[in-house]
């Protein structure tokens, strides 16, 4: 893992996402989108990474990512997803969900759709409908699912003016993140440490399954599904703990890994190398978890390699009978066979790393120190 480029961009970055490459294409991704927060005027921006070797002689412009275009965004950008090659969906702290369209010929972004009144609080004390921030988006063309601080789940379809389906009062606490499990099923995490699975084929307003942490009900902030095995899910919590779950088995996590010292904001499985997991946190670090078992010289419990590897304690809850037909390295419960290597990717401690994304050999992350870090050689 070499050569990570930093660039200061004068706005605190809340989300970074790579633009997906067209299926079957051999190119690596070249564009990413960012959303800012905590500014009086927030922006959704598109950046391009050019060729290497463009380093300026002057120390200021180290990064080689350049701004392509940007557009004003009302409220903080709470979540950002690429809907398809050209469209980006953004969730706002005003409760509004916006779809932006990128025009590659003149490099501009424009708003194509907006759902404004989707998110609000209702209650005896709140005046008519006070808006509630929308906290998470999941996209699966043509559907968009959003969740927010009002505990409501909305299902939209692109080009439909109203929500297709709304699950009111899905949760009495804040829903922090959502992801698709299989197409009609979604999984949400909330601030009382629960995972809930919802099936849109069912009519009711009840989740089809609830899983929760043992012990303290620590809020869960992020969730990601294993790209190939749809029952394996990773979540990150407020205490920096990484949990791996098997949603077919029981209601408790398969493994709990003490990771960061503060909230874990995002967790991502690498889409093509799912033995690699990435997490970023409020404590200013970004970790690469490598659970690949094909390298014989890795020793079992001690972590080495990388510049700032750390030794972690590994605690496993009592999960018997993990069905072994398709073993994911993440579901291994035997500590003596454990081979997770952890590397810290950022050169020095910074303010909170709010977001990261990985695609192919490229990684991008954004921080509260108003910097964007990009590397194109993740596995070198």
């Amino acid at each position, binding site marked *: 893992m070499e050569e990570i480029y930093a660039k200061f961009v*004068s706005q605190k970055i809340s989300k970074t996402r790579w633009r997906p490459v067209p299926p079957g294409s051999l190119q690596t991704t070249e564009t990413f989108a960012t959303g800012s927060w905590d500014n009086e005027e927030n922006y959704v921006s598109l950046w391009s990474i050019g060729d290497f070797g463009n380093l300026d002689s002057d120390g200021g412009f180290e990064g080689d990512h350049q701004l392509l275009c940007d557009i004003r965004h009302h409220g903080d950008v*709470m979540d950002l997803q690429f809907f398809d090659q050209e469209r980006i969906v953004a969730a706002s702290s005003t409760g509004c969900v916006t779809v932006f369209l990128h025009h590659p010929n003149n490099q501009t972004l424009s708003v194509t759709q907006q759902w404004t009144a989707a998110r609000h609080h209702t*209650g005896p004390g709140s005046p008519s409908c006070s808006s509630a921030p929308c906290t998470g988006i999941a996209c699966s063309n043509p559907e968009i699912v959003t969740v927010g601080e009002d505990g409501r789940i909305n299902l939209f379809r692109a080009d439909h003016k109203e929500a297709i389906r709304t699950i009111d009062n899905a949760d009495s*606490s804040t829903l922090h993140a959502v992801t698709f499990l299989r197409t009609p099923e979604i999984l949400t995490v909330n*601030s009382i440490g629960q995972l809930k699975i919802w099936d849109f084929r069912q009519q009711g307003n009840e989740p089809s399954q609830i899983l929760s942490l043992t012990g303290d009900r620590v809020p869960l902030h992020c969730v990601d599904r294993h790209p190939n095995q749809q029952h394996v899910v990773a979540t990150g919590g407020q205490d920096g703990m990484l949990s791996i779950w098997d949603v077919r088995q029981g209601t408790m996590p398969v493994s709990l890994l003490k990771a960061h010292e503060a909230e874990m904001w995002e967790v991502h499985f690498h889409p093509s190398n799912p033995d690699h997991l990435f997490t970023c946190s409020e404590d200013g670090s970004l970790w690469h978890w490598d659970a690949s078992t094909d390298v014989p010289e890795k020793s079992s419990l001690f972590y080495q390699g990388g510049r700032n590897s750390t030794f972690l304690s590994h605690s496993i809850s009592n999960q018997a009978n993990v069905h072994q037909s398709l073993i994911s390295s993440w579901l291994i419960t035997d500590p003596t066979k454990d081979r997770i290597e952890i590397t810290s990717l950022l050169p*020095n401690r910074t303010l909170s790393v709010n977001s990261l994304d990985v695609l192919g050999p490229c990684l991008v992350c954004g921080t509260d120190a108003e910097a964007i870090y990009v590397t194109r050689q993740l596995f070198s």
Partner: protein
Amino acid sequence: MEELDSEPTVTLIPGVNSQKKQMCFDWGPGEMLVCETSFNKKEKSDMVPGCPFIHIIRKNEDVYSQILRKLFNESHGIFVGLQRLEEELTGKSRKTQLVRVSKNYRSVIRACLEEMHQLAIAGKDPAIGRQFSIQVSSLSAMELIWNLCEILFIEVAPAGPLLLHLLDWVQLHVCEVDSLSADVLGSENPSKHERFWNLPGNTQTLTELELKWQHWHEECERHLQDGTFASSPHLESLCKVMLGDEAALLEQKGLLSTWYHFLVTRLLYSHPTVKPTDLHFYAQSSLDLFLGGESSPEPLDNILMAAFEFDIHQVIKECSIALSNWWFVAHLTDLLDHCKLLQSHNLYFGSNMREFLLLEYASGLFAHHSLWQLGVDYFDHCPELGRVSLELHIERIPLSTEQKALKVLRVCEQRQMTEQVRSICKILAMKAVRNNRLGSALSWSIRAKDAAFATLVSDRFLRDYCERGCFSDLDLIDNLGPAMMLSDRLTFLGKYREFHRLYGEKRFVDAASLLLSLMTSQIAPRSFWMTLLTDALPLLEQKQVIFSAEQTYELMRCLEDLTSERPVRGEPDAQQLQDDDVETTKVEMLRLALARNLARSIIKEGSLEGS
């Protein structure tokens, strides 16, 4: 640098009739608050409609603030790294580290300077271009001063290398401003003195260098006297310049853009082995000669003079007055403090200068809607008043989303500011309760370990249950986990729900004993006892005997406790009479059911099994 001889701009406050009414104002860290008072300007009180608004006035910095933000963020990283520099490094290695930090700061300033310069020349609007240019010259002056301070105070260059550093300094700054003129004069110097100084070596002692220079100087003089250059006046004046002849140098004033350029050139040719302590003599005379009585020294000149005189306090003081923000003096003073150059200069409220400047800078950052996160680290490194300032500021950050609140809370928790954690969580929990997000409210009170608020939330749940007859948010109550122990009321809520669940699963005996324990262990609030006893009714009416005799006695005791407490009311009205009726009926029913159950249980316990 800010000039004070231009007319201050007038800003009109919309809505305020400045002819008729007086305004009052108050300064903040970066802004000013203005509002209308009820004092009239004229004596007669005209009934003029007042303006009800308070206006916030801020200098329009939008133009270059984007680039300055990069300066703030990058220098924050350098600042934090400097504080973490270990104390154990002493002597030379520490000095090298400090010089490196200083160079880092300067490179950040230069980067911003470059970017702003690009924008200044690329922009189409001349007014904006002018603003950029002003800022460019301000940053350029900052870098100039910083560089000089680095040479004199941090690098502490001794005689010999001192002049080399000063040469670099001048070249760096003069060349960028006026490259053409510098080429003419500057190109002459390097060739001459490189040959002369033999740069890579530096093994020569000062005396050796002095001797060599003396030799060379005498040779030059001899050439002049012999009239070698008599044919060409240009070459002759060049020779005079190389001899350090002040008059000759002054003739080239046009090419020497500033007095410090003049100073360094002069030193190069007349006193190359100048000692740092002697610098200020030459500086003062150079300044006087260069200005020649035509103009008075500008603020920048005074600052540089103070630096040549090694008066650090004066440098900082003058910079504070001349520059418009605290960034420069705060970081420079902090760096000089790390070089152990500042004696504790007691200001009237006791803290030292470095801390005062850092506090001012950090307060300014907190006034910014976004840069407050940087301010936290600055407060952390102010030992006396930092923590208390942080406590005051952090509570006043507006929290628009939960995510921002979480970040603020993390800052407080990392510093053990439990009071602030509690107050912020309470605000968020209240907001959640008002929006009917009881689960969120509960999770905030768990985070703050606020038992009182947890009780409030539980009471809300119980009230909802009484009104609606069923629980809302079962997902929360069923899954409280260890958080249940936070408050008695919360424990009661959890257990009560468990009772309902047991009843639903038809595990009547367990449900019954749970119900009883809820009352006898006193965790059920008195107001709820009636409901609990009413819940016991169906259990009492079951075909099989569920409550044992002992338990029935207990229930009866509870009922008597409850009814004996009824206060005697005065004049009962119709509604109260009706309520009383309902109450009395309930109590009678309970008494009957309890008596019947008692009878059955005594019989059951008294008889032998199977008979």
